[in-house]
C-alpha cells in the first residue's frame, strides 16, 4: 500500500517531522468489524435460502437432465446418419426417419432449455431477494454498538455488491449441474462407442485436475484481493458523497482525488491480477482439447483404416470432444464465479451472524394500557466498554405522569441513561424498569410503542412531510398529523411549503432548516401518543422563537404523560416536576426546583446566577459543588 498515514498516535510521539495525515475511505481493516473466522459453512447457509424452493430446484434439475440428454443424443444421431443414412445403397427413408427423431429431440431441447433457464433464473432472483431481506431484517435487530462502529457504506456494499455477485453464482449453479452431467454423459457414451479410443482421449482428465489444483490457491487469493480493493474504493466514494460539504469547506478535493487515485490504482492492479489468473486456464484447456483431437484424428483414423470402427464413430468422437471441453471450460468459468460467490457468501453470512445482544426474552411480556408510565433505575452501571462505565450505580424513580429534567455537563451520562430506558443497550449491573417491568422482560416492539423519543439530531426520511410525521404511527389519520403539527407549531411552515403536507423532503430533510427538522421530529413523537416521552438535548439546537413553541407544545404534551427531558435551559427545567442532576456518571442531586434551591447546591447556585442555561455553569463552580455534594 502506498497510502501514507500516521501510524503513531500523537501525544506519545514527539518526533515532529511533518508527515501526511490523510486517508480517504475507511481507516480501518475489514477483519476488525466482522472477525476473521471462516466457518466453511457458507454453502450450507446459502442452501437454507434455497430450501424453500425445493420444488423449483427439482423441476429445473429434471429439465437440466432432459436438456443434457438431448445434447448427448444429437452427435449420436449424426454418427448414425453418416454410417447408415448416407451410404449410396441405403434407402433414403432411413435418413428421413433419423431426421424425424432429430426434430423431436430439438423440440424437447427447446422446451427443456426454456423451462430450466426460466425456473432457475427466477428462483435465483427470489433467493437473492430473500437473502437481502434476511440481512436487512437482521440488521434491524443487531446491537446498536455494532451499528455504531460499522460504516453504512460497508453494509451497503454487502447488501448490494455481494448480493449481486451471488446472483451470477445461483443462476449458473444449475447450469453447472448440467455441465457436470454432460461431462459424465459424454464419457459414458464415448466408452460405449469404443472404450480403447475413449481411454486414450480421457487421459487428459487427470492432467486437467492436476493443473486445476495448482491453480486454485493463487486464484482464490487474487479474487479475494480484488474484491477487497474494490470495496475499499467504493467505501471512499461513499464517504466523498456523504461528506462532500465538509470536503468542499476544507478544500480537500484535490488531495482526496489524489488519495482516491491511489485506491483506484490498487483496485486496478488487483483486478488485473484476478483477471490474469482466471484467463490462464483457457490455453491449458485448449491445449488438452487439441491433444484429444489429434489423438482421435490419428488413433481414430487408424482404427477406421483397420476397420475397427466406422467413420461415423470417429466424427461422433470429434463432436463429443468439442462438447466435452465446453462444459469443462464453462465449469472453469463457473469456478471463478463460485470463488467470487464464496467470498461474497462469506461476507453475507458474516452479516447474518452478527450477534444480537439485545433481544426479546422467551417469556417477554407486552406492555398494555394498564401498565403505567413509570421509569426506574436500580443500581444501574453501564459502559459501552464495560471497563469504562459511563453510568455508575445510578438509582432513581420517575412516577407515571411525572416530568423529570435530566441535567448535567456534557459527558455526564444523560444520553446513555435515555438509551438504556429504551433498551438500546443492556446494562452491566442493576435493572432498568419501565411500567414496573424489567425492560429485559418486555417485548422490544411493545417498549417502543410505550415510549416516544426525540433524538439529539432530527433524522428524517425521504418521503412527504405527512409520512414523516406519522412515521411511527401508521394508524394516525390526516387530522391527527395536522393536529400534532399545529401543537408543535410546525403547521405554518409546512403550509408554506410548495405542496404543504405532501411536499417531498429531500434527503434527510436537507431542504428544511435544522429548527424545522426538529419541529417535525417533535410532531412525529407527539403523534405516537405514547405514555413516556423522552427528549434528548433536542432543545439545544432550537432558537428561542421555536423554543417558545416547543415549550407550549411540551406543556400540553406532558399532561398525563411521563416525561424525561435532557434539558439545557432553565425554562424547560423549571416546568419539570423534578430535576435529576448527573455528573460524571453519577446522580449527584435530585428534587424539585424549590427543594434544590433550599439545598443550596449546584442547582441553587446556578439559579441565583441567573444563567439562562444550565450549561452556562462554569466548570470551577461545578467542581466546587461536587465537593459539596460528596
Amino acid at each position, binding site marked *: 500500500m502506498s497510502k501514507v498515514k500516521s501510524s503513531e498516535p500523537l501525544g506519545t510521539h514527539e518526533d515532529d517531522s511533518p508527515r501526511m495525515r490523510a486517508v480517504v475511505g475507511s481507516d480501518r481493516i475489514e477483519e476488525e468489524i466482522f472477525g476473521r473466522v471462516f466457518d466453511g459453512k457458507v454453502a450450507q447457509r446459502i442452501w437454507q435460502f434455497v430450501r424453500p424452493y425445493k420444488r423449483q430446484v427439482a423441476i429445473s434439475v429434471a429439465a437440466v437432465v432432459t436438456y443434457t440428454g438431448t445434447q448427448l443424443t444429437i452427435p449420436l444421431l449424426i454418427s448414425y446418419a453418416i454410417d447408415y443414412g448416407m451410404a449410396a445403397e441405403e434407402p433414403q427413408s432411413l435418413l428421413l426417419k433419423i431426421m424425424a427423431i432429430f426434430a423431436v429431440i430439438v423440440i424437447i431441447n427447446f422446451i427443456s432449455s426454456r423451462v430450466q433457464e426460466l425456473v432457475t433464473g427466477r428462483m435465483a432472483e427470489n433467493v437473492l431477494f430473500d437473502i437481502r431481506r434476511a440481512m436487512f431484517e437482521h440488521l434491524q435487530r443487531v446491537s446498536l454498538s455494532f451499528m455504531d462502529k460499522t460504516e453504512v457504506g460497508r453494509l451497503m456494499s454487502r447488501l*448490494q455488491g455481494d448480493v449481486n455477485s451471488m446472483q451470477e453464482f445461483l443462476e449458473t449453479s444449475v447450469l453447472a449441474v448440467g455441465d457436470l452431467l454432460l461431462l459424465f454423459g459424454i464419457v459414458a457414451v464415448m466408452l460405449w462407442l469404443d472404450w480403447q479410443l475413449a481411454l486414450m482421449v480421457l487421459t487428459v482428465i487427470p492432467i486437467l485436475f492436476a493443473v486445476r489444483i495448482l491453480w486454485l490457491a493463487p486464484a482464490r487469493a487474487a479474487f479475494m484481493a480484488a474484491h477487497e480493493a474494490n470495496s475499499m474504493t467504493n467505501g471512499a466514494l461513499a464517504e466523498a458523497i456523504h461528506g462532500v460539504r465538509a470536503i468542499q469547506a476544507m478544500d480537500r478535493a484535490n488531495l482526496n482525488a489524489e488519495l482516491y487515485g491511489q485506491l483506484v490504482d490498487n483496485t486496478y492492479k488487483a483486478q488485473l491480477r484476478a483477471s490474469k489468473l482466471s484467463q490462464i486456464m483457457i490455453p491449458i484447456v485448449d491445449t488438452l482439447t487439441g491433444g484429444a*483431437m489429434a489423438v482421435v484424428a490419428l488413433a481414430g483414423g487408424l482404427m477406421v483404416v483397420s476397420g475397427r470402427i466406422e467413420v461415423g464413430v470417429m466424427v461422433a468422437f470429434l463432436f463429443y470432444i468439442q462438447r466435452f471441453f465446453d462444459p469443462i471450460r464453462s465449469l472453469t468459468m463457473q469456478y471463478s464465479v463460485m470463488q467470487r460467490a464464496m467470498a461474497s457468501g462469506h461476507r453475507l453470512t458474516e452479516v447474518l451472524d452478527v450477534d444480537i445482544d439485545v433481544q426479546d426474552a422467551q417469556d417477554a411480556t407486552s406492555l398494555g394500557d394498564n401498565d403505567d408510565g413509570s421509569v426506574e433505575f436500580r443500581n444501574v452501571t453501564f459502559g459501552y466498554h464495560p471497563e469504562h462505565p459511563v453510568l455508575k450505580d445510578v438509582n432513581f424513580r420517575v412516577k407515571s405522569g411525572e416530568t423529570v429534567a435530566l441535567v448535567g455537563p456534557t459527558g455526564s451520562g444523560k444520553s446513555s441513561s435515555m438509551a438504556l430506558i429504551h433498551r438500546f443497550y443492556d446494562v452491566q449491573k442493576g435493572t432498568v424498569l419501565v411500567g414496573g417491568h424489567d425492560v429485559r422482560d418486555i417485548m422490544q416492539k411493545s417498549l417502543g410503542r410505550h415510549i416516544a423519543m426525540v*433524538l439529539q439530531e432530527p433524522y428524517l426520511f425521504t418521503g412527504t412531510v405527512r409520512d414523516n410525521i406519522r412515521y411511527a404511527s401508521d394508524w394516525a389519520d390526516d387530522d391527527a398529523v395536522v393536529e400534532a403539527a399545529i401543537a408543535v407549531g410546525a403547521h405554518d411552515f409546512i403550509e408554506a411549503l410548495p405542496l404543504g403536507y405532501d411536499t417531498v423532503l429531500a434527503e434527510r430533510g436537507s431542504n428544511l432548516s435544522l429548527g424545522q427538522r426538529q419541529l417535525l421530529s417533535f410532531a412525529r413523537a407527539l403523534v405516537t401518543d405514547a405514555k413516556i416521552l423522552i427528549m434528548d438535548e433536542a432543545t439545544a439546537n432550537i432558537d428561542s422563537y421555536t423554543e*417558545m413553541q416547543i415549550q407550549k407544545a411540551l406543556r400540553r404534551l406532558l399532561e398525563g404523560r411521563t416525561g424525561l427531558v435532557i434539558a439545557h435551559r432553565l425554562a424547560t427545567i423549571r416546568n419539570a416536576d423534578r430535576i435529576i442532576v448527573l455528573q460524571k456518571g453519577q446522580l449527584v442531586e435530585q428534587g424539585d426546583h424549590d427543594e434544590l434551591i433550599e439545598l443550596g447546591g449546584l442547582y441553587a447556585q446556578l439559579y441565583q446566577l441567573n444563567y439562562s442555561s444550565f450549561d452556562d455553569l462554569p466548570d470551577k463552580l461545578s467542581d466546587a459543588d461536587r465537593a459539596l455534594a460528596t
Partner: protein
Amino acid sequence: MKKNAKSDHEGGADRIFRRTSTVDAQAGLGAIARITRMSFRYPIMAGLALVATVAAVLMQLSIPVLLGRAVDQTQAVAASNAAPETLYPIATLLFCASVARGIFTLIQNYTAESVGHSLARDIRNLTYGKIQSLPFSFHDRTHSGDLITVGMLDLEGVRMFFSTALVRTVLLGLLIGLGATLLLSTHLALGLLALSFVPFAGWRSTVMRLTLRRTWLILQERLGVLSQVMEENLSGIRVVRAFASSEHEMAKFEVASKSALKLSHERIETRVKNTAAMTMAFFISMGLVLYFGGRQVASGEITLGTLATFLTFMAILQMPVRQLGMMVNGYARASTCGARLFALIDHETEIDNLPDAPDLKITNGTLKLENVSFSYAGNTDLPALSGISFEAHKGETVGIVGPPGSGKTTLMHLLPRFYDPLVGSITIDGQDIRDATLSSVRKAVAVVQQDSFLFTTSIENNIAYADPYTETQQIRGVAESAQLHDYILGLPDKYGTIVGERGVSLSGGQRQRLSIARTLMMKPAVLIFDDSTAAIDAGTESRIRKALREYAKDRVTLIVAHRLASLMHADRILFLEHGQIIEQGSHEELLKLGGRYCDLHDLQMRPSANVLATEVDKL
C-alpha cells in the same frame, strides 16, 4: 434569462438521476460511442485485444476445416490402403491450431478486461473529482443513494462493455462473416442452410435488446429506491429503534424489493424466451444441413469431410449464438449506465474558477457584502436573502441572530461560495470572490458547520483534515483551543482514536469541538461559526472564546447563534428576519433600541417563571 436557463438545467439533473424516461436512444448511442472512444485511449491493449480476437477466430475457423480434412484423409487412406503416416501432419496441425486458439483467446480476454479495468480507473477518478466539485445546490437536489448507484453499479456496466459487448461483437461478426465466406464458397446451398439461423437470431436479439434495455433501466431505478430505503434505514437506525418501527421499515423494504424483483423476473423471461428461440433456430438449421448434406454425400456430390466441416463449424458457432443475448445485454447495460455516468461527469459545475482566475490575496482582511440577494433553486419567488450589505474588518467579530428560516445559514454559505448570490457582490480586500480561484476562497473563508461530518479515521487525521502536512504541535494547539485536548488524552488511543462514521461514538458537543478544531487549522481570513456551539455547554464555550481571543485578532469572525450568550460580546450584531438585516449595532445599542433583539434578550436572560409563562401564553 439567466435564471430560466439555470432552473432548466436543474430540472435536468433530477431527471438524469431519478427518472427513467430521459435516457433516450440518442443519449444511449452517444454513451456507447463515448465508451468506445475512451476504450481506444488504450490503443495498445485495445488493439491487441482486437488483433488477438481476429487470430483466435482464424484458429477457431481452421479447426472445422482441419477436422473435415482429417475425416476425408482417413477415408482416403482406408480406401487406397495408403501408409497411415499421412495422418500425422493433419493431427499435428489440429493440435497446433487448438493450442494457438487457446493462447489467442487468453490474450483477447486479458487485454479486453484490462481495457475495461483501465476505463473503470479513469471513470472512477473522473466521477470522484466531479462529485467533489459539484456545488451544494447540486447535492441538495440529488439523493446520495442515486450517486452511489451511479458510481458503483453504472460503473460496472461501463467497465464490462469492452470485453462483453464490443470484443464479442467483433468475434461473432468475424466468426460468422469469415465462416460464411468459407461455407458459401465450398457449397452455396448448404452454406445458406447452415447460416439460415443467423438472420433470425439477429432479429430476436434486436427485439431482446430493446426490451432488455427498457427493463434494465427501470430495474436500476427500482434498485436505487431499494438502496435508498436500506441506506436511510441504516443511517437512521436510532430513529428506527427508538420508534420500534422495524415492521414499518420492513414493509417499506418489502414494497421496494418486490417491485424490483418483479422486474428482475420480467428481465429473465425476456432473455430466456429469446435465447431459447435462437437456439431452436440453430438446431433447425443444423437438421437441414444434416439432411440435405447427407443426401449429397450419398450422391457423392460432397465428401463426408465437407459435411463434417459444416457440422463442426455450426457446433462451434453454437456457444456464441447462445451468448448473443449476453452481448446484447452488454450493449443495453452500457448504454443506460453510460448515459447516467456521463450525465454526471458532464454535469456543469455551476460554481467554478473563471479562466485564469488569480488566487485571492489577503491584505487588510476586509470582508464586504454589497446588496446581496439570493434564493434557492425552484423557489425564486421566495428570496432567502435580499439586499444584504455589511462590512467587517480584520479583528472584528460580528454576531448574526434571527428566527429560523431568516437566512442566517444561507448567508454564511455564500461567503465561501457554496452558493453564488443572484444579485450583489461579496468582496474580500476588494476582490470579488467569484473572480478568484475557488480553492483560495475556501482557504480564506472557513465555516464550522451546523452538522459536523466526521471522517472515519483518527482524531488526529480529522483535525488535520484541511492541512494534512501540518505539525503535531499545531494539531495539539487547535485541540487545546477547542477545549478538546484533555478529552482526547482520556481516550484509549489518544489522538489515534478512530471516530466512527459521522462521529457516532462522540457526543454532539465533542463533535462540534472537533469540528471547531479542524476549522481553526485552516487559519482563514474569515472564520464563521454557523450555529456550531449549540451542543457545547456555555462554560466550555466561554473557554473556547477566551482561547481564541488572540486568534481572532488576525481575522474576521462571524458567529451565528441562537444563544445570545454566544454572541453578545461581538463588536457588532446583525439581526436577520425574512432575509433582511432589520437591526444592527452592538449589544448595548440594540438593547437600547428596544426592538426584536431586546425582546429576544429579555426572553433568554430573564427566565423567571412569570416572564416565561406570559411569553408562552402569548403564543
